[in-house]
């Protein structure tokens, strides 16, 4: 019986910590003041933090388009939410946070879909009186139709599924001599843009500051697909006074064509955070804000920071796994053995899928600090966070994720 009481009490020790580490909703993070906002741009300590810089640009240069790029788990969503908070400082601002994942199936996204999502959200921002306007009513109805699809009834004879076996004319395309920098906006996308602008008219007429923050496209692992949406949906809004901030996949940062830099007015990169506790206290603060100091000593906190590699989500995962290990061990505090076990588990997770080619690349990086993100194996290592990109001393550099490096060293 005494054992049952002890177990129940221990649950009460660890549960609040786990909830602070991994809250069910992003709103909980804001409400509990659990986010540690960065103090400066991660690539330039003299510049304001990304969320402040983005908010300033959106406020001063309406219609600007900005991209936020970073690896998986680097904190892009947190940065977007901080930007949203910052933009809220002006009461007349219309800020839309669009998580595409909540709206549509990203794997089957069509050009124009993002515009539709923006249009439908903008409709929520205009007054009831404006919604009653005929042109807006019609535009909204058409957008809804485009979003959900519709059924047209036609005479069966008019709807011929078979192509004409002997067409009188066939198209022969003569390519243009001047290759456009970005492909032309598709007709269908331009039509959607017109509907969106119709809905936005009341806000634009009031000179309102409209900013749309788009999250989710960074999960498109194929950078080509991201590019398509930018070239169609975002470009269609280029001349409207609607600012856009979009999360982009990490591979776009290393794209040879420098598409991000060419297309966007401002591009911010979130590299992995310096994870050496002697050089930066940021990760330490993140853990302390979530209550780590109540459950572990400075030494364990420092270990978790170091082996997270500066990947925010890995830091959270390590803290969580350590807490679970301590609970499993019937301990009231997290000890070195628990953090070590969590680090080992994370390292093993990164070990999965490493073939001979990848191991060679990793070995070269560990031994000679040589790494080139040109070939697909190297790119995959960066996307999967087995190799992390850092910025320090005015240069980008790569390093093997420390948890993986430790596991590899132990298994050698």
């Amino acid at each position, binding site marked *: 019986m005494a054992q049952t009481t002890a177990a129940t009490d221990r649950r009460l020790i660890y549960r609040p910590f786990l909830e602070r580490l991994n809250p069910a909703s992003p709103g909980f993070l804001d409400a509990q003041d659990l986010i540690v906002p960065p103090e400066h741009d991660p690539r330039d300590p003299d510049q304001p933090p990304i969320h402040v810089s983005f908010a300033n640009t959106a406020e001063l240069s309406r219609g600007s388009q900005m991209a936020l790029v970073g690896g*998986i788990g680097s904190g892009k969503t947190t940065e977007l939410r901080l930007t949203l908070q910052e933009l809220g400082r002006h009461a007349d601002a219309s800020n839309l946070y669009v998580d595409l994942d*909540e709206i549509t199936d990203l794997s089957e996204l069509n050009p124009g879909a993002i515009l539709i999502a923006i249009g439908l959200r903008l409709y929520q921002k205009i007054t009831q009186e404006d919604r009653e306007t005929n042109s807006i009513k019609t535009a909204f109805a058409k957008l809804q139709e485009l979003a959900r699809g519709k059924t047209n009834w036609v005479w069966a004879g008019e709807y011929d599924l078979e192509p004409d076996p002997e067409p009188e004319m066939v198209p022969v395309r003569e390519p243009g001599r001047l290759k456009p920098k970005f492909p032309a906006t598709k007709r269908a996308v331009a039509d959607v843009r017109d509907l969106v602008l119709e809905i936005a008219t009341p806000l634009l007429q009031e000179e309102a500051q409209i900013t749309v923050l788009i999250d989710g496209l960074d999960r498109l692992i194929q950078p080509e697909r991201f590019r398509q949406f930018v070239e169609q949906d975002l470009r269609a809004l280029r001349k409207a006074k609607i600012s856009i901030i979009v999360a982009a996949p990490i591979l776009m940062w290393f794209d040879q064509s420098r598409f991000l830099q060419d297309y966007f007015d401002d591009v911010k990169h979130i590299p992995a955070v310096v994870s050496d506790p002697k050089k930066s206290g940021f990760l330490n603060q993140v853990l302390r804000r979530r209550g780590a100091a109540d459950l572990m000593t400075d030494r364990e906190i420092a270990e978790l920071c170091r082996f997270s590699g500066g990947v925010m989500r890995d830091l959270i995962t390590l803290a969580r796994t350590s807490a679970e290990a301590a609970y499993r061990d019937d301990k009231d505090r997290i000890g070195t053995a628990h953090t070590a076990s969590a680090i080992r588990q994370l390292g093993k997770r990164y070990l999965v899928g490493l073939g001979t080619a990848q191991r060679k690349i990793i070995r070269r990086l560990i031994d000679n600090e040589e790494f080139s993100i040109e070939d697909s194996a190297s790119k995959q290592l960066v996307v999967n966070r087995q190799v992390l990109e850092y910025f320090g001393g005015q240069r980008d550099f790569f390093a093997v994720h420390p948890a993986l490096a430790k596991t590899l060293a132990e298994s050698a």
Partner: protein
Amino acid sequence: MTEFATTTAFRLVRRLAIGQDSTSMYLLVCEEDAESVVSDLRAEIGVQMTLPLPVARVSETNVEFPESGSIRGVVIDQWSPDLVAALDTHVIRIERTRAQFLFITSPAIAERLLVEAPNFRNRLTEVLQIVPDTATEGASC
């Protein structure tokens, strides 16, 4: 296949008990019959947490996951191209359910999934090898 820390249904469910009210995703790798793992988990969740364990099987439902329950099981008993979209591209949808998800699969599928779904891999609470309760002595987690 990488040797992950081993656990049993009993030990895993003890951990699930402290994680209630926060989302988690465990990838459980089993060498043996997934159905016996499901049955062990169901029994332990029933006893320790007095909760049901709704389970979906990819071979039967493709990638339709259980829509209710604070703990939900998904047996990935065959590879499906839709898995990557459901688990990787849309991993946020799973996170927002506030549920604890147990993905039970074979070593081969687990490896493929971890390689092809980096967003999923990064968001997993943990990857564990699950063994029958009779093999408790070998369990480390």
